[in-house]
């Protein structure tokens, strides 16, 4: 039997952003104090999450149940290795994004910063809540908190375009949420519980095959945050948000919550065996492969850097779904470690895109000729992230893709291996032009001074290093360096932050010994 320990650590971990957001609101008039609270809350949260790791690595579980909502459904938290993996990703990246936000928001003199930090903290509350939830209903509660709290962030600019993006964002995700609620209610009525259990809760229940299939479709639609095609278009549209938000959406909270949900459904609601019996694995794999390749093709066509990254995210998220759907230990392993690894790599890329915007006011790739010389550190970090995305060693992406490839072989479907390699190749196709433009093309001589540049007063005609011109820029640069470094270190030492160990424990739960 699994060793279960009662603990209030999960509750404390959620209390940090909850308290943090309240304090942010109270000290809204004093920016320094407000941002200090953000940083403090994020650091504390990370430490608390980290403190749960040793217990989980011992093969134990941490539970914290507060009250019973329905017979068989408690409101409470049940920390297992996989949940902790996601919580660790979210909380560690919150610290870095917080530091970055300070530089970014101040440098661009954005309005409504209190609302920004407040909603940011709430979104993290949602994400970590999703990670630590012990059952679907609890998870749904946090999932919806995450959706709603991100809306003001997406529509932050309040321009018609941003409002449209916000509306689209809500329309997609709340529709998804509605389906999810239906799926959860259905699951409960079939299984009498919604707890996450390795091996699933639906096995052996009295429901027809077609019911399982319908339910699975409902679940997949419900986790629309995973931005699979054809329900992906909210994500590129949401790119009008400030860059730290895009980073949050893409690397940390929102999309990962969707993918996390799908993994939970596959592994812990349906269970690997039932998935195999129903033949759902192959279906989901093919579905994911479609997005992996399709989104990459879309990405090639984008000139706006953030939009291209958005499509890249859509593609990469499907790698995770793909990995899980392989239903082989290595595939799931690859999917699980992809969550933190992709988080760090993608956040690097987004932070770089934001840094370029702040320092030079450029949004489009075609304008970025020679930017590598003006912002060497930033672009170097970008290159690291891009290489990681393509799966080139020694960046973290290599490890996860390696596992996915083994997983594809393990599942006995060589076609899937081929698909995986094609999709990886396409990553190169859309990342390479950015790097080439940035480093190997010459900056045009007479650049027009645009509005944004005038605003930040940092335009330089000659390719001069602009990324350190202002003390605030260090707030932007340091997180970039950290995330890029960690992305490399993850490849060399995959067990940093115990990520590898946690994934192994999770796999052992799902597949037994292997």
């Amino acid at each position: 039997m699994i060793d279960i320990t009662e603990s209030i650590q999960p509750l404390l971990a959620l209390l940090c952003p909850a308290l943090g957001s309240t304090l942010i609101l109270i000290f809204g008039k004093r920016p320094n104090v407000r941002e200090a609270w953000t940083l403090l809350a994020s650091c504390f949260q990370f430490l608390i999450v980290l403190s749960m790791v040793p217990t989980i690595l011992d093969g134990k579980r941490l539970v914290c149940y507060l009250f019973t909502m329905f017979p068989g459904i408690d409101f409470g938290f049940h920390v297992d290795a996989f949940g902790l993996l996601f919580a660790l990703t979210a909380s560690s990246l919150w610290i870095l994004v917080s530091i970055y936000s300070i530089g970014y928001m101040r440098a661009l003199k954005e309005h409504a910063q209190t609302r920004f930090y407040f909603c940011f903290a709430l979104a993290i509350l949602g994400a970590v809540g999703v990670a630590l939830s012990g059952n679907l209903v609890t998870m749904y509660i946090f999932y919806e908190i995450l959706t709603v709290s991100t809306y003001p962030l997406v529509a932050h600019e309040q321009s018609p375009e941003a409002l449209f993006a916000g509306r689209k964002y809500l329309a997609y995700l709340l529709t998804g949420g509605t389906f999810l609620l239906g799926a959860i209610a259905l699951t409960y009525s079939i299984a009498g519980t919604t707890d996450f259990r390795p091996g699933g809760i639906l096995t052996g229940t009295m429901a027809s095959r077609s019911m399982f299939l319908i339910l699975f479709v409902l679940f997949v639609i419900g986790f629309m945050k995973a931005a699979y095609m054809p329900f992906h278009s909210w994500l590129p549209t949401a790119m009008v948000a400030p860059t730290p938000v895009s980073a949050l959406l893409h690397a940390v909270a929102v999309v990962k919550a969707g993918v996390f949900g799908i993994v939970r459904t596959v592994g812990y609601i349906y269970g690997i065996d039932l998935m195999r019996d129903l033949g759902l694995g192959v279906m989901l794999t093919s579905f994911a492969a479609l997005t992996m390749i399709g989104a990459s093709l879309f990405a090639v066509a984008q000139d706006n850097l953030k939009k291209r990254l958005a499509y890249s995210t859509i593609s990469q998220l499907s790698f995770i779904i793909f990995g899980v759907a392989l239903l082989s230990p290595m595939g799931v392993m690859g999917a699980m470690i992809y969550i933190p690894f992709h988080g760090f790599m993608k956040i690097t890329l987004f932070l770089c895109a934001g840094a370029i915007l702040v320092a030079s006011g450029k949004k489009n790739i075609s304008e970025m000729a020679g930017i590598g010389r003006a912002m060497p550190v930033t672009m170097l970090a970008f290159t690291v992230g891009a290489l990681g995305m393509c799966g080139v060693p020694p960046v973290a992406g290599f490890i996860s893709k390696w596992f996915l490839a083994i997983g594809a072989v393990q599942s006995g479907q060589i076609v899937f291996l081929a698909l995986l390699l094609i999709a990886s190749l396409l990553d190169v196709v859309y990342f390479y032009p950015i790097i080439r433009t940035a480093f190997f093309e010459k900056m045009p001589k007479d650049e027009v001074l645009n509005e944004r540049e005038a605003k930040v007063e940092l335009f330089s005609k000659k390719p001069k290093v602009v990324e350190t011109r202002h003390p605030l820029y260090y707030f932007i640069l340091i997180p970039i360096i950290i995330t890029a470094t960690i992305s490399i270190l993850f490849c060399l030492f995959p067990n940093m932050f115990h990520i590898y160990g946690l994934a192994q424990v999770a796999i052992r739960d799902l597949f037994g010994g292997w």
Partner: protein
Amino acid sequence: MLSVVEHFPVLVVVVSLLSAITIFIAGWINRKTACYISIATLLGQFIASLFILHHVMSIGPIHYRLGGWVPPWGIEYVMDALNAYVLVVLLFLGLVCVIYSKRNIEHELPQKVVSFYTIYQLLITGLCGITVTGDIFNMYVFIEITCLSAYALIASRGKIALKAGFTYLVLGSIGACFFLLGIGFLYSVTGSLNIHDLSLLLPPLYGNRVVLAAFVFFIVGLSIKMALFPLHTWLPDAHAFAPSEVSAMLSGIIIEVSTYAFIRVAFSVFTVNFIKLLPVFEIISWVAAIAIVVGSILAITQSNLKRMLAYSSVANMGYIMLAVGLSTSATRYPWSGLTPASMHILNHALMKGCLFLVAGAFIYKGNLWEIKDFQGLGRRMPYTCAAFVIAAISMIGMPPSVGFVSKLYIILASLEAKQFVFVAVLLLSSLLNLVYFWRVIETMYMKVEEGTEHTSHVPRDEIPLSMLIPVLTLSSLCILMGILWLTKIPIPILNRVNVLFGLVGGP
């Protein structure tokens, strides 16, 4: 020897009636006393209702015989779990609205303060009467009192409100007539008007056509009163043009009390056994499902906030009636029987009360009726708008608000009844809710007025504290009550209702 609490049911009604007269006389001398007398009375009534609820839960139903006459001949007031609960809800919202009304009425109807409070107190009397009575003819009398005083309140702003009020009067009277006809039919075959007595006399007559006709009359009459689609046509105008606290009462309580009357007639006069003979609850569920969809769609088309909220009430009546319709087929704890329906009575009162009071605040501050005029209100009236957002996301059904809990319970009930269409309807309705509420939220917070920078400082312009506190109370209860429902602490009260009506259930 009766304990003091056992006198409370009648006191709640009588004190309220006397208070109406007192307000009229005292108000003649000094206008300012009217409001305070009303607040004091309602506070007293509310506390009394809490005592009643406690008594009912701990000791058992209260039977009070008016004038000492033995029930089938005399009028009897009966308090059981259902009406004790409804009474608490009703008096709570009444109290909140009357506190809110102090400044608002001084502002909106400065010439009519005294008559407003007199009639308001009469309205409360009528509502309490419907709730506490154990005699069906007495119930009719109170329904008429409620209807007439509501008419006067709706029309109090004059002009277009007169028309709205008149429509309500006509349709409301038709509804009451149907109700009266139902009573007459039952009386002709049983010779009794006491609810408990009727329930004993009726079973042998369940096949009787007169009894069946009476039941239909009750349904139609009360459906008009509770604005169940397609008999809702009086509601939007009435709710939109009444003073906002009256709209809040209309939407939050008056139509809910009609639902209560329906439940009482269906389960106490008739019984579960009778209902199971006919497919009537099935029909009601389907009608209610249509009401949910149509009400929501019509709400989307509105440009006036209060009208929009009024149509949303039509949809929410659908929620309650759908839950009532499912009550005979859902038997598993905790969503068994009438629990989801009675739960949504409170939840809707909280949410819609809050939303209408906020709408009133916008009218109070800037005479803003149209949604498109709300630009920048998020900064001008931060607390009021925050309350609106909470109540609105609660209507949409975001966890952990009350709306979410209602939705979840009704969904679970329909799943148990194997009615998947209703699940789809409920889920669809939350999306439709999203469409029309989010439009308002977006206008309040996100739309930037043309010609203004969003960095420019907007002066804060909040409503007075005596209006703000009721609004904030209701909105915070939307969340707190939601969490409380999830912890299932108040569920035993509702479960007692199920036991009372013989609907299977129990932990």
